[in-house]
Every structure is written in C-alpha cells, then in structure tokens.
C-alpha cells in the first residue's frame, strides 16, 4: 500500500512541478494526435458525407470496408506503415521513420475511418428534408451538402473528438513508427509502457494521470455535443 501511495505522491509532485520530461512527453502526445486528427478530419468528413449522400453500386461494400477499418489494430497499421517508411520501403528515402511525422501518418490512418463512419451515421440520422430545402432555395448540390454539414455540425464534432480519443490513447503506432525516442517521439502511452518496465512507476503514474485527464476532457466534450 505504501508503494502505491508513495508513487502517487511522487506522481502528483512531478505533475505540479512541471517536470520537463513530463511536459515534453505530454506535448509530443498532444502535438502528434492533434495534427493527426486534423488530417483525419480533412479526409474523413468528406468521405462520410459522400458515402452518406451518394448512391452507387458498391456503396454497401464501401461502408462494410469502412466499418472493418474502424477496428484496425494499431500494431497492424504500425506494421504496414513501417514497411512503407523503413529504409528498404518505397517511402524510405523520405527519412520519416522514427519521426513525429511517421506517428502522425499512422494515427491519421487509424482515425480517418472512425471520423468517416461517425459522419456517415450523422448524415443518415439527419432530417432528409435538409438537402431538398437547400436545393429549392437555390443551392447547388455542393452548397446543399455544405448546408447539411452545418446542420449536423455537432455530430461531426463528436466524430472528430471520438477519433482524437482513439489516437491519443494508442500505443502500437507510436511505438512502432516513433520508436519512443526521448524528447522527440516519446508519447504519454509509450513512456508509460517504458518507464513502468524500468521500474519508474511514479513517472508512469504521472503520465497516466495526465492521459486520464485528457481522456476525461475529451469524453466530457463528447457528452456535451451528443446532448445538443
């Protein structure tokens, strides 16, 4: 019990003292996950909107594929991108492996299907008169789709937040593509795994508490949006 309470106190001290390593790790996590979710939103929102509004042969197959990609294991994404970005891979000359950009790419791949799927669900649940009303007021198909997006904005925001929640808490991509390099690609999740294995339980606990706070804030935001 003493071990746990001592570690907890040390963890709180580390957070309150703004320990440089804790700060760097938290910053890396927030920076990579935020950039990844922006990319995922830029890709996923149009995909979800397009799948929700268009009718074409193979649409159901595309939706099934998107559902499958939602459950993509993080280590599989890490493995595939590792193959692409490693020195022998086709994108090896770019020298991205073990940089924050490799982690951002992997996390964007993870989050895009989540954002697209949840936007698709929001489109399906939207009032089906929105598009026709916009068209009859003189909008083009594209302008009508933008109006629909405005009407389902809370659903879209919830989709983006859910995607962020997924990438900030993942380990596989960050570990395999980032390499857990101190002050460069070490994120909260990879640091927790490493420090705990080294016996630095308090340090891991401090990062765990920060991560839980971020997750709590994300979920609070999600709840607020879902109630609107």
């Amino acid at each position: 019990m003493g071990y746990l309470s001592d570690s907890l106190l040390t963890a709180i001290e580390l957070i309150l003292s703004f320990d440089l390593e804790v700060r760097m790790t938290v910053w890396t996590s927030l920076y990579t996950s935020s950039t990844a979710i922006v990319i995922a939103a830029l890709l996923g929102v149009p995909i979800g909107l397009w799948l929700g509004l268009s009718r074409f042969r193979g649409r159901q197959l595309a939706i099934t594929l998107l559902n499958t990609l939602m459950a993509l294991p993080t280590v599989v994404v890490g493995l595939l991108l590792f193959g692409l970005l490693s020195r022998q891979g086709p994108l090896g000359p770019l020298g991205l492996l073990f940089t924050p950009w490799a982690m951002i790419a992997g996390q964007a791949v993870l989050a895009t299907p989540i954002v697209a799927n949840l936007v698709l669900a929001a489109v399906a649940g939207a009032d089906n008169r929105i598009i026709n009303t916009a068209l009859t007021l003189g909008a083009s198909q594209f302008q009508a789709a933008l109006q629909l997006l405005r009407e389902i904005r809370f659903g879209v925001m919830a989709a983006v937040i859910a995607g962020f929640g997924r990438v900030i808490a993942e380990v596989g991509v960050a570990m395999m593509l980032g390499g857990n390099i101190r002050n460069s690609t070490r994120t909260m999740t990879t640091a927790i795994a490493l420090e705990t294995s080294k016996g630095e339980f308090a340090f891991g606990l401090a990062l765990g508490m920060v991560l839980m706070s971020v997750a709590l804030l994300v979920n609070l935001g999600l709840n607020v949006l879902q109630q609107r």
Partner: protein
Amino acid sequence: MMLLELKNINLPQGDFNLQVSQLGLQAGQLYVLKGENGSGKSTLLRLLALLQQPTAGDVIFAGLSVAWRGRTLKQLRQRITLLEQSPLLFSGSVEKNLAFGLKLRGISGCDLQQRIDQTLEIVGLNGFQKRLARELSGGEIRRVALARALCLQPQMLLLDEPTANLDVGQVAALERFLVRLPQQGMTVVIASHDSGQPERLGGETITLANGHLIPNGSESPAAPRTPDLKVV
C-alpha cells in the same frame, strides 16, 4: 406568356407513375392543384420545382428545355421556390433562414436586411429576426418558411398545402395575400385538398387522380385509392 411546360412526362414514384402528357403554366397566373391524398400532387410540385427528374418527357422552362445537371439547373431552380407541406427551417435564427437563399443570389448588406424585414412584415412576423428556429411554434415555422420563399421573389412559387393546420382567420389572411401575387407577375401553384379553396382563390384548377391529370370539367374518373369508411 408560357413559363413552364411539361410534355409526355413519366415519373415513377412509389406505387404509382406520374404521367402528364401536356401541361402548360402561364406567367402571372394562379393555379390550384386538386387531388386526393396520394394522387401525385407533391410529386408534381417537386417536378415543377426541378427537384425530381422524370424518366421520360420534357420540362420546358421559359422556352428552354431543362438540362438536369450543372450550373444551368441551379440557375433555373433559383427562379422557382417550393414550400413543402412540412417545411424545414435550418438551425439558427429566422433571419439566417431568410438570408440563406438571398446570399446564394448574391444579395447582401442593406438590400438583404431590407428584404428580410419587409418579408417578415408581410407574413406578420415583424421583430422575429433574431428568434431561433427551434423556439417557434408550428404555425410560426410555416410562416417563416413562407417568408423565406417569398423574399426570393421567384418567378414561380409552389405551395404544398400552405393552409393545412391553420385556423380559419389565418387561412383567410393567407389566401388574400396569395391571390395578389400573380398581379406582380408571379406564377403561383397551390396544392390543396380543401374543396372550397379553388373557388375562393380563383385561378385555374389542375386536377390529379392516381398520377394522371384529369381534364377540367370532367367527372372524377378515378376510383379512390382507399375505400370509403362506412359508419355502421
């Protein structure tokens, strides 16, 4: 002057086909579209609003055959406005709803505000500019939707059961307003199953039954879609 013509139209909709061999709508004329529920009134209105493309036939607007794609379609749609039976207001304020179509037509600034204010006054909702759509009653929603359509000053205004669920006083006021619109050059088509409305509104009557136009003056040839209920 002929504003819109339908020729040899076939438009499948649910369990019936809307079939119109010939229909012409004159500019500055009021038409009352009669027919039972499910006779195809709403489908015909959506076709006239250029929202639904027929599988066969021609739609000719102001002498030009409608091409069902691209910029031209958008430009033609901007000359027609449909007010649906259960109109939808976008989230946000009343003012924002009225501004939507005006902005799409490049109207902004003082002109935009003036049109919004004037039209809200016409429908008796002066001072409603900042009210949120979600705070409005059913009747107010219909009036805002009507104002949103009117402020665009379309060449053709299509109204699907505009007086449904309104009280007698509101119906009379709306009808008095609608009959004046053709004098300003607007073509107005009103779908209604209120049997007294064609007489009160004047204008020409278009009768639909089971997706077919019925010539004026003929007896209703179509059997009702559902049997009459009998009280035993």
